[in-house]
């Protein structure tokens, strides 16, 4: 046991290392976010923060809870699969509180052309027109009701105007 006395300086040195390690752990404890490493090498709480961001598009189910009449018209027409906010824009504020925000009616001359302006790049089966030739500047809703765009007059609907 005579060797242990000579090794006292090593124990002092080891003690210093232990002390520094403790300081490291204490500093690390305060610097590293609590949820870091919860799911992996990242801050687990970030997932909840990203999920908590506010929505701007309410989703068509929200619209359909009130606007049942429009839904019935739309379901029967060619735009059945087009969601409300595809044309009307983001309306989560209106869905949360209908009095807080009144949606602006889209201008059919603009909104219809966004999809239906003819282009060779578009799929062949998609209904397309050259707006100026087709309607001579009249708003689309003069003839087509946007929620069910097929025209009532079967002769015209069958291809009178193209």
């Amino acid at each position, binding site marked *: 046991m005579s060797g*242990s006395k000579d090794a006292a300086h090593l*124990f002092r040195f080891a*003690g210093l290392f*232990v*002390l520094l*390690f*403790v300081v490291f*752990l*204490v500093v*690390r*404890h305060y610097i*590293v*976010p*609590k*949820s*870091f*490493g*919860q*799911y*992996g*090498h*990242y*801050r*687990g*709480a*970030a*997932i*909840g*923060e*990203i*999920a*908590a*961001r*506010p*929505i*701007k*598009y309410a*989703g*068509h189910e929200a619209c359909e809870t009130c606007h049942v009449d429009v839904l019935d018209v739309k379901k029967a027409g060619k*735009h059945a*699969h*087009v*969601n409300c*906010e*595809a*044309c009307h*824009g*983001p309306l989560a504020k209106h869905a949360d509180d209908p009095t807080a925000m009144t949606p602006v009616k889209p201008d059919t001359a603009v909104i219809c052309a*966004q*999809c239906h*302006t003819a*282009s*060779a*790049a*578009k*799929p062949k089966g*998609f209904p397309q027109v050259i707006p100026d030739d087709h309607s001579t500047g009249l708003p689309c809703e003069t003839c087509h009701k946007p929620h069910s765009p097929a025209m009532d007059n079967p002769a015209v609907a069958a291809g009178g105007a193209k």
Partner: protein
Amino acid sequence: MKISRRQILILLPAAAVAWKSLLAGTPEASPNYTMTDHWWSMLIDIPKCIGCGNCVRACQAENDVPDGNFRTWVERYHVSDENMTNPVVISPDGGKEGFPPVAQEDAGKYFFVPKLCNQCADSPCTQVCPVGATFTSPDGVVLVDQTYCLGCAYCVQACPYGCRYIHPVKKVADKCTLCYHRITKGLTTACCEACPTGARQLADLKNPKDPIHEFLKTHAVQILKPQMATGAKVFYNGLDGTVR
């Protein structure tokens, strides 16, 4: 060798602190949403895309994407018969305001390709982050912790699909979150909500009732750059071989 009282006095608090740091971490879960029940992806049906730009506008509105940056965008390909290996690709302002007209007499084929983060299962972008600010969530969405990001842009360079950018105001990495704030509330993404033709569809690969499974079974579906082995989860139906 005996441990002295002095050594024990040093070691015990150290052990206590180490144990406490191991136990740290507060569980974070939205009510009625279990992350491990989902594995999110998206289906892009190219023959249905009309290049209207609704998805790009919806994404910018939903996520406050700054002008000139895109979390999703639409490209128009023109592949001529004579030069099939070099398609002409345009995406003016991400396709946000549509595309210029096509001369009908132009030879070859045209089609639109919507792009977004591929939500890779083995994503190169998360692997290069030096601080652990970007990650694949347990439900398969590649997210950015913007309070932790340094803005070094390693991830922007690492993404083989060009889906990331440095936010010009926040100066941190930004990208498609697959509308994580919506899908965790049972809604679809803003781009899918706004797509008038159903060319984009959110899909949950862990949900056996999701129509994606039937679609994948019955269609020839491809991912972008499969040779990169990124584990991309955005599936393209009708993808032309010229698309990069």
